[in-house]
């Protein structure tokens, strides 16, 4: 996983880095950096098994009881 993070970061730096810096589009740099940073943070959180960051799956777990009730109402099996 750490190797994966390094490979992706290198790819982004090599492929996008020069163009983004040359264009000096600050919004573009911000978006690229934000996605990369989020990916690195979640990646490290996953590798180190810290689970400090909010898990988007918890929102889906919140929906689960409602989904199960709908399934039960319509007699659907899964």
């Amino acid at each position, binding site marked *: 996983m750490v190797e994966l993070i390094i490979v992706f970061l290198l790819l982004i730096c090599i492929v*996008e880095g020069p163009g983004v810096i040359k264009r000096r589009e600050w*919004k573009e740099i911000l978006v690229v950096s934000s996605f990369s940073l989020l*990916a690195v943070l*979640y990646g490290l959180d996953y590798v180190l098994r810290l689970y400090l960051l909010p898990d988007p799956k918890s929102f889906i777990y919140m929906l*689960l009881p409602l989904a199960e009730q709908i399934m039960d109402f*319509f007699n659907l099996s899964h």
Partner: protein
Amino acid sequence: MAESSLSERQLAFMLFMSLMGNALILAPISGSGRDAWISSLLAAVIGLYLLFAIISIQKAFPGQSIIKISEICLGKLAGKTLNLIFITMIFYSIIIYLFDTCILIRTIFPFLTCNILRSLIIISTAYCIYRGVNAVGRLADLLAPLTLLFIVGSLLVISTVADFSRLQPIVTNWRMLVGGTLDGAGWPYSVITILALFLPFRSDTGERNRLLYIWFFAGVIIFTIRNILVLSILGPEYVLLTRFPLYASLRFVAFADFQRVELFFFILWFVSGFMVLLINYTAGVLAVKEFFKLPNFKSIILPIGFFLVVMSLYMYNSDMEFYTLEGITTPIIKLSINLLYPTIILLAIKIRGQSLQSPQIQSRPVSSKG
């Protein structure tokens, strides 16, 4: 053809490939038992409405992205909020498609690790997106006939072992039928909404959208026949137990000395799985580009791909958890967002009508400049 334009035929094939996607091998609506094929047919009405809705929105604002249209019609705050929900849903769909494609590949190559597989798939799709929106359209143009050929082939092959008595009696439980219809409307039919992000790239701005509707109906017919055949081969109980029912159906087929007939059709599942991932990934990139009003989208392809690979591993690293959670919640999430998003925008266009004929509408059309 320009890098940033799509013909109606390419759009129609993209629609077809989005519909087929992973739904071809997985089992949508299987929870509704032996009436799943009727539910599939009824659910297509929602899909038809969504296709009509996104085409109508595009007609009202030719050349504009739905992300921008949403902000024009609903105002900055409401428009941005709705767009953010829609983009989150696209990202979640990509994570699901990525997971499904990996699981499928690992049935054939069980020793490939998820980390490597997901990264390789995302990098391959990213390369296609780097070639431009037209390249995605051309790939769909190229692969849709091949996919159709293999679909017809697989359906013909499994029809030899079908036992249609398993489909009787029909419509014994109306609740199951209605539930199945809603389930099917959520997945696979509601994924049509994603096409709204590609409609502004249409080069031939004709009034008619015949091809789009024709290929939509082709998808509906295929799903219905697939459901009838799979249910009549496996039976409604066994369909629920198998992860890939069409794959399982093909394993029942034996021709003389030929064995493992199902592997012949592996290309079909890989191609359809890859294409739906590619279309959704492109849509996600285009949506983010429009959301942040960026001058080009190429610089965000890899960062978004990186983010999605990590999030897919973070969210789902166990297929037991994935199938427990995804199977139940995804149709509801997809149906509610994919149905409400274009409906709210369409209603706003209808209600506000003339007042929307502002200079904003004449602004620069969307581009895929890289």
